[in-house]
């Protein structure tokens, strides 16, 4: 069977000093995506099992999420992304709250050696 082209033609930009960091970030997000896929599959299986203990793979394939389930899953993904990308949120929260003091200032504050 014919194969679709997988890479977009054009030089890929890099954003970090070491281009391997760009690649690792893509791997992390790729993995996060696959975790989300597993989550939905497990969620489907659980919902089916709540109705009947006799379920087949085809039942999972044919499952149609209702509006309620669709909304719950979207909410789960938002929470999940927030956990995975917590470190990015931390930096923004620090900027937003003016929490940008040099850590050395905190050490200097408690350092009583000048009193000796």
């Amino acid at each position, binding site marked *: 069977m014919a194969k679709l082209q997988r890479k977009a033609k054009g030089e890929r930009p890099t954003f970090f000093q070491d281009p391997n960091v760009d690649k690792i970030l893509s791997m992390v997000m790729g993995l996060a995506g696959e975790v989300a896929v597993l989550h939905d599959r497990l969620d*489907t299986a659980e919902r089916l099992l709540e109705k009947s203990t006799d379920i087949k793979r085809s039942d999972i394939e044919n499952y149609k999420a209702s509006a309620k389930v669709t909304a719950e899953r979207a909410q789960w993904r938002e929470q999940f992304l927030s956990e995975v990308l917590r470190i990015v949120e931390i930096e*923004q929260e620090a900027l937003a709250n003016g929490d940008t003091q040099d850590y050395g200032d905190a050490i200097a504050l408690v350092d009583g050696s000048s009193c000796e």
Partner: protein
Amino acid sequence: MSNALPATTQAEHQALPKTTHDEFARQEFVRSYKQYLVKNVHGGNQLAYEQRVKPKFRQENNRDPKDRFEVRDEMVNDPHYQMFSALLRTSQEMMWSSCQIPVQRELESLNKKLNKKRAKPRGSLRMDSSLEIPRYHKSVDIHCQPGGYHTEFSDQDASAGMVYDRAVHIYAMGQMGPYNNDIGASIALWLQETRPEFKPLRILDLGCSVGHSTVPYVDAFPKAEIHGIDVAAPMLRYAHARAEGLGKKIHFSQQNAEILDFEDESFDLVVSHILLHETSDKAIRKIAKECHRLLKKGGIMVHAETPQYKGMAPFDAFMLDWDTRNNNEPFWARSHEIDLMKLSKQAGFDPKKEFETMIPSAFQIAEAKRSLTFQGGDFGGGGFWFIYGNEK
């Protein structure tokens, strides 16, 4: 509570490729990922700029950065901007990949289904295998879709269209409605509201791709004969199958908007939807001239784009310019700085009849009516589209 899926869910239609349970979940993740970036990471760039980048620049230069180029020189070294950009680029690549997987799985049967001869088609499909794909489409794959709009991976291939229809929905995070038709629907609504006497009988959509923006004109102007042109064969094959599946009569033909084979003064309305920024300086001039040639007197040309950089704060212009270097949109920057009044004038239009304006999104208007708690969208300038055009 109604059990209907939210209006930001893509409608299933005959041409749209089916997904397995996990393929759909993977696409849904990308959509949430993009939403997350808009909602929770994009704003950090402004914080980083105001609190880190600008103060440092001021200290060194005794002034603020004067334009988007100076902002860029500093921001590319900011760790938050680097992280945001790497995440956004990755989301774009994951979007295309997640949309390719179901198409690749059933490529042969999907192509066979889409190309099946229809007994009584409403519209038509006219192909030109000798048409040369413009260089500006071949140098890089626009907005990172592998193979771009035009590449054919098998005989009578429509895969680029199949991938694109789903990807547009994810890219817009559903904010263009169940049929991705918001840009066309918004222009049609704007025309009906601002020019109730204008009843176009022949309409042309330039660079129509899968015809998602063409379809709403069929509903808005039921008496009109509607044409859509594009250079890309896989898009048109899909567009035709899509329109027929939706029961919409549209005549598609494979042509370049720079040199069209339609007669002079044969259209009342010529439109395009985020096409111009995917062309070139030379092409955009030719396209404007073709619009002028094709329009009857009293006819209207309307092009939808994102807003021009003119008058924008340097930081905002810098952010809007992200796609130029990072999403394979080489003409994005330049197209946002073109003097549109001049463009119209060189094409033969009367500059007094030129317009540039923001119009409300038809989808967002409908959403606001559907739900009183609607908070407004993040896509496309927050519920508005920028249009530029001219009456003849």
